[in-house]
């Protein structure tokens, strides 16, 4: 666990996800995330991340236990090579925006990934989502490539990447053009519907 704690705005506390509280947390997370999505995720998507990487999920809650913000991420080897963190979902409730909550949540996720030996972190964000891009770029992410018409609405995206260790760029990976082994990355990227910050 990270030693750093991020100061929360008044009335807000930061909480790490616990699988024992799945029944309480998941519906709230779903509700907050799905507001920003053009197409909802099924329960399985949430389960997929939270079951395997509950320790990379952090929430901002208010005094009445309402969810003000959440980050959902994962950490696993990328194409058989570097250990890659991936920020899958990030959302802040409208009324709580502009208070640094999203940044704090992302930092907690990054700290947790670093503690678990991550080599790099990646995510995609919509070209027009300047708030999200600024957030990540301020932390140290760079745009590694642009993705044409990545989202269902036809908007393009940028892949943002953060190297955490030297030599990451040279770690061999499966050739992206060759056939992937069954255990390697899925065909579809969930983040096509990445919510706005």
């Amino acid at each position, binding site marked *: 666990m990270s030693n750093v704690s991020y100061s929360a705005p008044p009335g807000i506390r930061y909480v790490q996800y616990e699988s024992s509280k799945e029944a309480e947390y998941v519906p709230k997370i779903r509700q907050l995330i799905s507001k920003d999505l053009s197409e909802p995720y099924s329960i*399985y*998507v949430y*389960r997929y991340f939270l079951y395997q990487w509950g320790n990379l999920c952090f929430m901002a809650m208010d005094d009445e236990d309402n969810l003000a913000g959440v980050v959902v991420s994962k950490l696993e080897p990328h194409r058989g090579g570097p250990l890659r963190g991936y920020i899958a979902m990030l959302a802040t409730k409208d009324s709580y925006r502009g208070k640094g909550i999203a940044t704090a949540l992302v930092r907690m996720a990054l700290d947790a990934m670093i503690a678990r030996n991550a080599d790099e972190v990646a995510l995609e964000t919509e070209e027009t989502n300047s708030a999200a891009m600024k957030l990540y*770029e301020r932390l140290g992410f760079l*745009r*590694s490539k*642009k993705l044409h*018409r990545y989202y269902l609405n036809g908007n393009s995206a940028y892949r943002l990447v953060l190297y955490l260790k030297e030599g*990451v760029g040279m770690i061999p990976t499966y050739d992206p053009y060759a056939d992937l082994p069954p255990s390697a990355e*899925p065909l579809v990227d969930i983040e096509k519907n990445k919510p706005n910050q």
Partner: protein
Amino acid sequence: MSQLNDGPNPLALADSHLPSRPNADSRPPTSILPRSDTKINITSHQISAIDITESFTAASSALNTGQLVKDEYFTLFEAVGALEIMDSKMDSGHLAPGETLEDEYNVLRNLLPEEVIGIMDQILCHEVAWHIGHPLSQTLFTCLYVERLLWPEPKTLEEAQFSRDLNSRSDNPLLNRVLRSYCIATIKACHFVHCMVTGESYYEEEDFTSQLYHRELLPKVSIAEIQTLLDEALSYNDTASISPESKKAIEKRLQFRRSILDALEQDTFPLNAGRTPSLSCIPLLQDIKASSQLGKPVNEAFSTKIQRTLASSVPPRPMVTIKLSDALAHFETLCNDATDVGQILATKTSEELSTAIWVFMSRIPQPSVYIRALVQSFLLDRETQRVLGKTTTKQFLFSSIAAIVLPKSPILEAANDMVESATSPRFQMARLLAEFDGKAGQQYINIFRNACLNRCRTRRTLCHLVLDWDTLQADAEDIDGTLQTYTKEKPALYASHQPTYSYPLSSWVYHHKLNHLRQIIQMGFELSIYAPDEISGMYWFLSYICATHISHIDRISFFLERDMLAQEALSQNSDAPEKPDVKDQADYQKTLKSLFRIYTHLKATDAFSKALHALHTLLLRHKTIEVPQRPYSSDKLRYELRMKPFLSLNVPEPVTFESFREESSCTALSDEEVLEEARMRIGDAKKFWEEVLKAGWSAELAENPELNRSSKEGKTGKTEMQKGSTTIEGEWSEGVKNVIRACIATSISIVTLKKRLDETGGLKGMKVMVPVPGEKGCWHEWWIVPRVLTV
């Protein structure tokens, strides 16, 4: 379950009592399972029964009710693909209270002329929405009229009716002839587009969505049949008792369908020099626009309910609507682009082709996926495997090699292929060149194909390609080494004290590889990949690549000149057994001139890069460009990420982070020196870019201006630009002029900064605006010129 051979099995009977789909929360019914203390008494020799009750009960108690288990094969793909039934946002079969399963719109109803016009225009909008990448399920296939024609699948054109039931056909000719022919012609046009795009390289769900949902777009129906239908509709329309305005509106729309179908069909013929048919569509598009207000849209004729039968495994997705004016503009651009493709086909050399394709594909907005597929289909015809219908990929490769490194060499002579004696050096040379073709031929043509992808993909693919070209260079070097033994090349002293050889093939590879590296960097500016504070470093790196390339061109020229002089000496020696032709000298001169063009362009790029590097460095130094804190990163780590495409290359040798930092930050130079560097370099840049402009887009044309086949020059010598259609030359020139404008803007910024620096010794009170490519204030998307304002 054990296999049953014969005889009744008590377990089999027990099975049939199990509910077919147990609820997730229910326990397995215990009443039918034998209790654990029940002896199982089966006498058949072929059956061996094992009582698993205990182990089964133990296993199922290992999980709590509602506890999750993840199977290793349940990937993110499965999770994302899952739908929750009865969730209205995910389940397209979910009916809202009172909602009917199917549409209740009567496709056989009598339509007013205005409604027919309205529906036609709505269909056109959907067609264009599909062109730009939206799926048919959200566009054309939402039209109930289209759905009726295509499902169930019609085996003949006659079967494609709005009603399959012969007894309930409508006799309204507006419906049967006019709308039906319009729909059928539209569907067939889509068929052509679908075939063209899916026949070439494209990216699914990026450029285009090819899903047809088990429907076909009338592939077997001939154009002739459809043209007949359209003609019949036009005949009817001519005599119909409807208002003259509506009559004309319908006529133009039907004629447009005729015209575009002709044009699309022509695109599938082997290379056709006369590519004018699509231009006849343009006046019709203008007529359609002029009469659009006559159309009365019929929204009930379009439905998202059809999605249920088309694509039930994905959530319901909204209908995509675009404005008619935008749809018509898209078609107009399509027709102009298709016409301009003729200019690409008319190019004579690989250098011209490269320039023409690059200029064409850099158009804003980029030509549509159909046009980009069309160009690919001409670049390399699938059936004949000919490049632009003329040469083989091997000839194409060799002509490029000849143009850059080997204008006159026994190595490339086609006659070598005819030599049969295996001991002959010419036989060996032919063999080695064939080996090189095997490695390089496909890779070379792929460079041109790659330029036809969307801009993001072009850059991404280049980043992968350079690694292959790095390997190719090493392979080529090996082949060069062997070739030397057959050509008996004498080494020369170039640049160092060690004698060295010309290495023609690997030189050719390296030249192109350096082009790719330069394009990767410059497209990075175009796509806004770099953060504002990265720009200085990237221009430094661009300059570094240019300088490397300039040296390489110099090397190539050196060896060419040596060979040219040797040839000259030989021709003056009247005792020589083989007297070289005067023409040979001309070949060398031509190649050297071509190299000089490349050299000038590189000098221009290099100078401008240096100027912008210096300018951005100064601005960074004085913190007028924002530098984020970046607590999770370090300069070195970001360098590694940014340079990823280049760090694995053997040649050019990767630049270490320390060298990069040292060189690009100009720590040894004062502010005045940095600004002076910027000032001098921008002066050079402007001069070199003017030379580039003067040299023109094509070496061929520079040599032979009378060959001006692609410029639409009038008798006055001024380039005539037809409305909407532009020449490659015109666009290329305009591009270079924009770079020159960017140079001038840079000068202005430098002067403004110098003034402030001279007056105050600093840059306080200066506001810097870093332009965004594509937006106003950016002269050229590859040159990020900061605008400096005094606050």
